[in-house]
């Protein structure tokens, strides 16, 4: 009943609004020029005051807007003082903007609306689209790296994948720790479908007072992505393209064939000595191999990356339009892999009446993947170099004493294709029934249809790499998400000095997914016959029916009420609060609803009378905020609403095959009846300033937030839980830190300008509390050893290892008996840091000289540690690194840096923990612009050509492939797959190798 009442109220309200009086609009045009040089300023935002309706100036600084004859227009642009002009019936309004060199009045997207920079009380970082589009990256998220303080990005090297994003540290222990993305109102966790050229701006909401308007979705941060729309005026056409190649940035020197053989034999001999066995050695000592295959080289290549897109935009009084189409292709560096994406977008707005406009943002994306197993990187690391790629007779090489398959064969035998089509967007109605009031209704949706086929042919390389019967997997996945928003925004200035902005709204959403994955055997090895009906029907199986991940579906529904109110007095004092109430179907019946809020204030000190006479600061602003937000997907893949959920346990064949198999089903999942969202509460304070006529600007921020995290509690086997895990709100994790950003920008002359920017974040991650005596262990290596413990007073996922103490007489590690009880037990483990960086920073610089432009970006991490898991897990006879071989302990080299060769499972120790510090040159771009073309058809056009190096160098002391270890760590053991998720308690372990790459490319931008 409660809902019904609300709806009916809203509907009534909208009827009232729509039928209320309409003010007559007139068309106003004019030009906006710079007070210094009198040149037109492009991109100035022209808004009808008190509304969100507006336009921007074109390339010459001209604009045209329809507005009520009694309206007031506001003109604003970065680094210019905002101006307001009453229309008063004039048809032409020319404006001269003075360069105020401050960003205070820039309008910033803040979620369910915009706010003036000067009125924001939370911490919001904005990144311009140019910063993103100049990089050859798939997603805007990757493009953010180093651009904003408080935002840590961990690159992923896999074509078609998103990076890991951490905003102001990690609070969640398990489940999802990535922020949500809001693309024109669509809440999503995947923005791989967005063409970067279509992005107008990216805003990162970093603290609770900015995030609270997204309530239970905002716990990991919110990234708002706004796509471009057409500007009133002349049609503008943009063409962007680039093409280049990617290659591996760092490689690790591995032992050659002979060294591997010597090491392998030594390991067996040494192990025999330890265990008293007498196993024979693998390689004949008198006939050691001479062959060396560089497996990493054999499976990688210089991969082509290319992007082409074109957009057409413009607008008239009645409509604005933006259309774009693009292609992005990325081969990556692994042989045979390929990712292709085609995008198209139409963002239009139709002004039906002065008080009514409707519009839509629609994008369709199709992507096609040819996947090759990334596990081959690990195989290439572990494979014996003494085996050839192919033997003389053409068959694949292998080492029989090794269970690692030939990586080249693994790539050749993989046929894994997937594709998906995604339609995302919205349609909206804006009604302005009276001045200052805007009502908006929008319907946002996201529909994905994906399918895939995996064909495994019959092959036999050797006993550890063979498949005796062909199989075909046919995978289908689709998802439909929608969210309907209705909101009202009111803004009014009373008695000149009192400015009030209020937004209130209501939304409901539904997210439904469906998946199937079927497998059949005996399908011929011909691509045109890869269909289920070509196989043997008796072999048809539903893949992993007991898990909901391959076959099954989900449904989540949510309802939200939200509101925000900002009051500004005399442009000096702001107070702002927001409130959101969320209901979710994912939670148990008594825990469905949660309330989230924030309150904050800011003080524009430069507007005070006592600051009038100073000219040091153009702007000085202090802000502080407090709030509470939530994370409603803190527990991965669990529908928590069902306390008594039956789980499938697989099938059993009674009288098989004469009778069909029988399904097993029982209760084997323990659930916490109180499970709900994870809350994060925090305070944020900041100081923003602009100085020296806008040349220097910057901000300092402090934050301190506490997450009541869900943790996996290890249940005893006796509890009857199949995965021995119960998720419960059992830990408190604090992130506190300080961040600073400084920018210097100077325009020396028309021919020369430059800018420098630096941002840094110091974050302290600490576990404040772990309820009871739960042992938050993690970082399993898949060989029975764990590497992390999250304990009170230490960062999440701290490496917890034995401390090495020299070698014994056989060259094996000795460990420190830390507690002095005379034996080495678990209580001798020590904490040696975690993967959470203490500091991360970005630096960027740019110079424009005549027609040249040069820019330069750096990104770095300090104070984090990496566990070199691929060294620690060496299953029988696998290859080793050259350094490990050469520096190993032998009776003649007792002053060694590495232990003697041994096959027993080593204790996780300080030996494997390395510094994760790195400094990476992110991007170097050199461009040259041609304008005032002599050729007639290029008249009025602007052509820029550029060359870019992305990630050309990484400076790090880490000995592995990359210090940026995104995503999951999992075991590559052929004898069982113990996969651990990429959650905070498992992060920073380089177990699977995935090298990152450098990109070198050329491109052009053409505008006319």
């Amino acid at each position, binding site marked *: 009943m409660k*809902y*019904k009442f609300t709806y009916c109220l809203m*509907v009534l309200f*909208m*009827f009232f609004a729509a*039928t209320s009086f309409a003010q007559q609009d007139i068309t106003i045009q004019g030009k906006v020029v710079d007070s210094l040089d009198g040149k037109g300023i492009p991109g100035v935002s022209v808004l009808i005051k008190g509304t969100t309706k507006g336009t921007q100036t074109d390339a010459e600084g001209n604009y045209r807007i329809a507005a009520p004859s009694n309206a007031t227009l506001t003109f604003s642009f970065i680094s210019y003082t905002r101006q307001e002009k009453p229309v008063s019936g004039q048809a032409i309004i020319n404006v001269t903007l003075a360069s105020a060199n401050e960003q205070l009045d820039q309008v910033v997207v803040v979620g369910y609306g915009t706010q003036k920079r000067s009125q924001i009380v939370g911490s919001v970082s904005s990144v311009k689209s140019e910063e993103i589009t100049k990089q050859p990256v798939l997603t805007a998220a990757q493009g953010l790296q180093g651009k904003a303080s408080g935002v840590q990005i961990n690159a992923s090297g896999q074509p078609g994948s998103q990076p890991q994003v951490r905003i102001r540290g990690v609070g969640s222990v398990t489940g999802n720790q990535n922020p949500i993305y809001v693309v024109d109102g669509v809440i999503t966790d995947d923005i791989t479908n967005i063409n970067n050229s279509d992005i107008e701006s990216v805003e990162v909401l970093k603290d609770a007072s900015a995030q609270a308007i997204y309530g239970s979705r905002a716990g990991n941060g919110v990234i708002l992505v706004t796509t471009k729309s057409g500007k009133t005026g002349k049609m503008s056409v943009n063409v962007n393209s680039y093409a280049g190649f990617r290659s591996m940035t760092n490689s690790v020197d591995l032992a050659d064939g002979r060294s591997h053989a010597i090491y392998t034999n030594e390991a067996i001999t040494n192990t025999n000595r330890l*265990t*008293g*066995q007498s196993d024979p*050695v*693998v390689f004949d000592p008198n006939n050691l191999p001479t062959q060396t295959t560089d497996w990493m080289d054999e499976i990688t290549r210089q991969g082509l990356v290319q992007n082409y897109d074109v957009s057409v935009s413009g607008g008239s009084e009645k409509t604005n339009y933006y259309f774009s189409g693009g292609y992005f292709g990325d081969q990556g560096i692994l042989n045979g892999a390929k990712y292709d994406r085609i995008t198209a977008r139409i963002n239009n707005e139709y002004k*039906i009446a002065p008080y009514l406009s409707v519009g839509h943002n629609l994008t369709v994306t199709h992507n096609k993947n040819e996947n090759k197993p990334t596990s081959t990187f690990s195989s290439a690391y572990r494979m014996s170099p003494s085996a050839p790629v192919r033997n003389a007779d053409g068959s694949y090489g292998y080492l*029989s*004493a090794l*269970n690692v398959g030939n990586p080249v064969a693994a790539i050749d035998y993989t046929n894994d294709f997937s594709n998906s089509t995604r339609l995302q967007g919205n349609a909206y*109605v804006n009604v302005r029934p009276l001045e200052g009031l805007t009502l908006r209704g929008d319907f946002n949706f996201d529909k994905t249809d994906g399918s895939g086929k995996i064909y495994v042919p*019959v092959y*036999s390389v050797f*006993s550890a790499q*063979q498949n*005796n019967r062909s199989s075909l997997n046919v995978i289908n996945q689709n998802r439909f998400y929608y969210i*309907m928003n209705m909101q009202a925004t009111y803004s009014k200035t009373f008695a000149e000095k009192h400015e009030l902005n209020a937004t209130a709204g209501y939304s409901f959403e539904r997210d439904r997914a469906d998946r199937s994955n079927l*497998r059949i055997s005996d399908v011929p090895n011909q691509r045109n016959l890869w269909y289920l009906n070509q196989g043997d029907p008796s072999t048809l*199986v*539903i893949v992993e029916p007991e898990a909901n991940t391959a076959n099954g*579906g*989900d*449904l989540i529904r949510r*309802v939200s009420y939200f509101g925000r109110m900002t009051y500004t007095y005399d442009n000096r004092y702001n107070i702002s609060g927001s409130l959101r109430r969320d209901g*979710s179907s994912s939670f148990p*019946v008594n825990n469905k609803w949660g309330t989230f809020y924030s309150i904050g204030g800011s003080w524009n000190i430069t507007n005070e009378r006592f600051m009038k006479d100073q000219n040091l600061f153009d702007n000085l602003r202090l802000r502080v905020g407090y709030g509470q937000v939530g994370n409603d997907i803190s527990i991965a893949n669990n529908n928590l*609403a069902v306390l*008594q*959920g*039956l789980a499938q*346990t*697989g*099938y*059993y*064949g*009674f*009288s098989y*095959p004469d*009778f069909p198999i*029988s*399904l*097993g089903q*029982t209760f084997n999942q323990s659930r916490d009846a109180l499970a709900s969202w994870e809350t994060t509460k925090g305070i944020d304070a900041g100081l923003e300033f602009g100085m020296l006529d806008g040349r220097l600007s910057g901000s300092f921020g402090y934050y301190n937030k506490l997450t009541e995290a869900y943790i996996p509690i290890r249940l*005893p*086997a*006796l509890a*009857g839980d199949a995965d021995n895990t119960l998720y419960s709100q059992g830990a408190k994790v604090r992130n506190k830190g300080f961040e600073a950003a400084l920018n210097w920008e100077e325009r020396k002359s028309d021919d020369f300008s430059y800018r420098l920017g630096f941002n840094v974040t110091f974050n302290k991650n600490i576990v404040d509390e772990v309820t009871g*005596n739960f042992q938050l262990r993690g970082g399993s290596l898949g060989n029975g050893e764990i590497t992390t413990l999250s304990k009170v007073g230490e960062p999440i996922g701290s490496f917890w290892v034995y401390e090495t103490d020299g070698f014994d007489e056989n060259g094996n590690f000795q460990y420190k008996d830390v507690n002095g009880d005379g034996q080495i037990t678990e209580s001798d483990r020590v904490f040696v840091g975690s993967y959470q960086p203490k500091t991360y920073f970005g630096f960027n610089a740019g110079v424009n000289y005549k027609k040249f432009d040069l820019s330069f970006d750096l990104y770095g991490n300090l104070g984090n540690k990496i566990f070199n898991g691929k060294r620690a897990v060496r299953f*029988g*006879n696998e290859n080793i690194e050259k350094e490990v071989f050469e520096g190993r302990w032998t009776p003649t080299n007792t002053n060694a840096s590495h232990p003697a060769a041994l*096959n*027993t*499972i080593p204790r996780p120790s300080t030996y494997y923990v390395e510094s994760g510090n790195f400094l990476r040159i992110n991007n170097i771009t050199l461009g040259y612009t041609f304008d005032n073309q002599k050729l007639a058809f290029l008249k009025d056009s602007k052509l820029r050509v550029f060359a870019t190096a992305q990630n050309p160098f990484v400076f790090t002391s880490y000995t592995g492939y990359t210090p940026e270890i995104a995503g999951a760590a999992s075991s590559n*053991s052929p004898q*069982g797959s113990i996969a651990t998720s990429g959650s905070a308690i498992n992060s920073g372990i380089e177990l699977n190798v995935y090298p990152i790459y450098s990109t070198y490319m050329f491109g052009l931008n053409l505008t006319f």
Partner: protein
Amino acid sequence: MKKNIFVINIIAVLAVMIIASSCNKEWLNPDPENIASGEDSTYADPANAARFVTAAYTNLLTWEQSSFAWIGTTSITSDDADKGSSPGDLGTDKDQLDNFTFTATTPSFKDGWNSNFLGISYCNQALANVPLFTIEDALKNRYYAEVRYLRAFYYFNLVRMYGNVPKLDKVVSDEDAQSPELFKQLPPDSIYAFIKSDLEFALKTLPKNTEYEPGNIGRATQGAAAALLAKVSMYRKEWERAYSLTDSIINGAVGSYALVNDYRTIWREVGENSSESLFEIQSTGQQNGSVRQYSQVQGIKEGQFNVPTSQVFQGWGFNTPSADLYNAYSEGDVRRDATIISVGNTLFDGVVIRSAFNPRYNYKAYVSIRQETQGGSTDFSNKNIRILRMGEIYLIRAEAANELGMSGEALNSVNAIRARARGSNSNAVPNITTTDQGQLRQLIWNERRLELAMEHDRFFDLVRTGRAGEVLRAHGKNFVDGKNEIFPIPQDEIAASGGVLVQNPGY
């Protein structure tokens, strides 16, 4: 006005959408998507009662329950098998199992502990939930008996592996899981008493194999209950019970059973669920319903054959029969080449092994691609694992008879086994004739080794007969008396119990 009408239309459409899709009290309380639950129609559908029971069977198929860890703890530990594979390939911890250098963190013991207790939990769930269905009492009782049989099976594993284990006779509630009471370990005597009470119930309740409706091959039967109870009785030295139970099986009192004539066929596909079989784990050869990687773990490693390698099921080469086992067979004993694949031999499907990484492999895990319906992949073979079969029943009877002083009956039974082992070679495997109780006891024990080699019995049998230390040390293993008769309780489980579980002595 025209414009206003348009506006009103739009808004009306919006309004209808809003009201239609959302004026729904149930918006936040949908039926759980793709999850059957204890709160919906689950209990109205009798098929779900069967599923609770089937769950207790499906646990027999897991990697943890019946594959690598089980092979390691029951076979690689014994003198019948070596670790196998390549010298540096330790199979995670199989070298530790082979050499008795394992500790409480050795992963295989965790697998064994966890999966057997999970199986017990599934049995208890079935016992708690089946009563909630409206089905015939007879069927309910059969279901109870099936899962109690399985619970006894899981407990028999646990008590032999870990000695003192907690007794779970009901579903563990969330509160119970926190209680120290849950972890109270009982001595083997009490656990055996619990096992026997389950088996006695199963024995009197379960149908005979001849009484089941079609479609039920693979379920626990009266014969299976009798066989397991007989084996348990043997472990408890309750010889009269062991004798009478085995007698009843051989007499056909609990179902229709007989030794198959050809020993070599027992572990092949043609021998699945034969008259020899009292209980075996059913493996379909499909991804759904197969024992995970049982054959692959033990498969021939790196073979060269007379046929293309794609026609031969190969694997990782673990758990290779030892030279000691090979030599334990007398010349002409058909069981040797039916148990052990030796390089150079011709297999039943015509495959000749010209060379391979290891000298011997477990024939009882071999699957023929050429002549059997091997299934979709090497991960999921159709190899049923034989748990209890007539060969063992005869030997239990022989041992019980000998202990009861009935040497004639003992000789009858043991010689029935030897007669089959003789095959067509009348001079081989002569009958045992001694009536000396001590000598005969040793001979029967030896016969158990030969008959049941590589069938996961040897290590437990050595411990049962008190010979483990002597035999295994002679085999070069670091077996410590008073310690290694049982395995360590997994360290993780002691931690998860809050330190309540008490570690076995010596670990």
